[in-house]
């Protein structure tokens, strides 16, 4: 619970990342190249955006399982607003982003105004939002976007994948809010002891609504990038991404019970997972083997961190 213990977990994670990078670069010449690493950054942006918002949500002791469904719904709406309703593409994207953000706001209202535990509330909206995506799209995909749109998901700005700039901006924003502002301290306070936070005069409900809305926005942004990257919209986009994002957040040292965690840790967790995925596939291990290894790494990292923490605080 102390600053020292947070520091320990992230140091441990950074060491693990360095070890993984070194080992993997010996496994394959193609791993530790600028082109490959930047491309990996491209691939982890969607999960990354969601995981950064999820870090703040989990730090309040909440959780958002509906992010993958919001991603799917937003992706479908980009296509529907553009092709079926005939809006210009920029307007369609903005409208879809607004809808995804609204979906997140809906989660916030259900959690705060109705007092439904976040796990159940977002479990219900996971089904609802995905169902809306399926119903609206009727399993049809939308393709054939104008070329400029692909610049977001497939192009580069200053030799770096476009979306990686967005991820960096999101990470910096999240890190500053959580680490250096009174909102960040309010988030930790709510996660550590919600009743105490309320009696201290913190606006618990407003903070939570803002965070679930932000999570909806992050998922919607991830959806637009996803559509631009793969050139199509489908209703099953983002299925299971909630578990990937939560894995990165928890691996990054954020306590699932709230009150503790940093955006830096989440980013380290994301990089570690992506490095393992990529490095192992280059070394000839199939994707399924990598999935298994990520599970093992998650459990061992938390186990090790638990042991260190107990050794350090006693």
């Amino acid at each position: 619970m102390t600053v020292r213990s947070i520091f320990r977990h992230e140091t441990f994670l950074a060491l693990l990342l360095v070890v993984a990078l070194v080992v993997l670069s010996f496994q394959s010449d193609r791993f530790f190249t600028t082109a490959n690493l930047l491309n990996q950054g491209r691939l982890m942006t969607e999960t990354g955006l969601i995981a950064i918002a999820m870090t703040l949500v989990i730090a309040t002791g909440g959780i958002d399982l509906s992010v993958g469904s919001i991603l799917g719904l937003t992706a479908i709406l980009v296509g529907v607003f553009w092709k079926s309703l005939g809006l210009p593409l920029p307007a369609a994207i903005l409208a879809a982003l607004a809808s995804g953000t609204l979906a997140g706001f809906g989660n916030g209202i259900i959690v705060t105004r109705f007092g439904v535990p976040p796990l159940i509330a977002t479990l219900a909206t996971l089904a609802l939002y995905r169902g809306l995506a399926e119903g609206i799209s009727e399993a049809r995909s939308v393709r054939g976007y104008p070329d400029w749109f692909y610049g977001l998901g497939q192009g580069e700005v200053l030799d770096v994948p476009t979306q990686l700039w967005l991820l960096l901006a999101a990470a910096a924003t999240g890190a500053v809010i959580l680490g250096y502002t009174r909102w960040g301290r309010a988030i930790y306070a709510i996660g550590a002891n919600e009743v105490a936070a309320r009696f201290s005069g913190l606006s618990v409900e407003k903070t939570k609504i803002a965070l679930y809305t932000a999570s909806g926005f992050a998922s919607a942004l991830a959806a637009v990038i996803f559509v631009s990257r793969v050139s199509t919209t489908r209703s099953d986009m983002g299925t299971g991404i909630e578990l990937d994002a939560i894995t990165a957040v928890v691996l990054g040292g954020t306590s699932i019970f709230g009150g503790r965690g940093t955006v830096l840790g989440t980013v380290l967790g994301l990089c570690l997972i992506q490095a393992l995925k990529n490095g192992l596939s280059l070394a000839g291990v199939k994707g399924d083997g990598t999935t298994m290894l990520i599970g093992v790494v998650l459990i061992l990292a938390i186990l090790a961190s638990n042991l260190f923490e107990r050794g350090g605080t006693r």
Partner: protein
Amino acid sequence: MTTSETGRPPAGPKSGARRGVLKRLMADYGQEIVVFAAILALFVVVTAINPRFVSANNLTSIFSGNAYIAVAAIGMSMVIVTGNIDVSVGALIGVLATISGTLAVSGYPNWVAWFFPVLVGMAVMGVQGVLVAYARIPSIVVTLGMLSILRGGLISVTGGTWISNLPADFLIAQKRLFDIPVPLVAMVVLTLLAAAWMRYFPFGRSLYALGGNPEAAVATGIPAERRIVAVFVIHGFFAGLATILFATQLQVIQSTVPPNLELTIITASVIGGVSILGGSGTVIGSTLAAILFATIGSALIFTNVSAYWLRAVIGLLILATVLADMLRRRRTR
């Protein structure tokens, strides 16, 4: 939470002895009654629109098609009652089904093909229980990791191929016992046994104590760690039994399970009234909720609602049930 209440107190045989029978029923089984009423209402409305809804064939498919979800939700409810959660059970059922099918086509006797996976399920859950209870890793983290391990393991072992040519005797979920489908019998018997065990036996009641107030539970002498491991092993046992029903209902065993199966099972528990915070809820509720899901799915087909809107309607109904439950709790408080 804006409500400081963690849900209903554990329903004890003597709770509310001075209150009216109806009030007591409402207090002890409020959510179960809400879910049951929802099922009844659906039956009345849909039958009025399309009388074939209550044909013997359709009733069979409603009550036995989702039985494996109800059986898996029994174990899940016990885990949630202790204040833990398991997101790995969907992947586990997939792995166990593949083991079961492989044994069946390799010429092992049927009882081995049915029950060996049950043992594997208990072992896997036992390991997770130890990590939760003794290594003190939050259950959502342990089971999230195990989900990756099982899912990755399943695909790398099977390569995504289906198992076919299953022996006819192996397909027990297609059989009938006294003219009643086996999955229905299994669901009802297991639910009633588990409900009675949780309500009337000290071990079962200690699960509520552990979920409601772990410190008080330990102070009264309940061995918390051992009980947590035990409840995970029991959950593995029910996941194994659910696998038997799941793996033997079709002529083939796919290497995948329905997407988000673990979330469906958790949702059944929660909609059935098991508090996600631990300490309250019954397996009768979770079984009713599993039946409710099946009824909704079937009702949409019989009222000609487009299949594409199926999940949206289920999602909306789940949300409505959850909100109704929150409002009901506020009023009875």
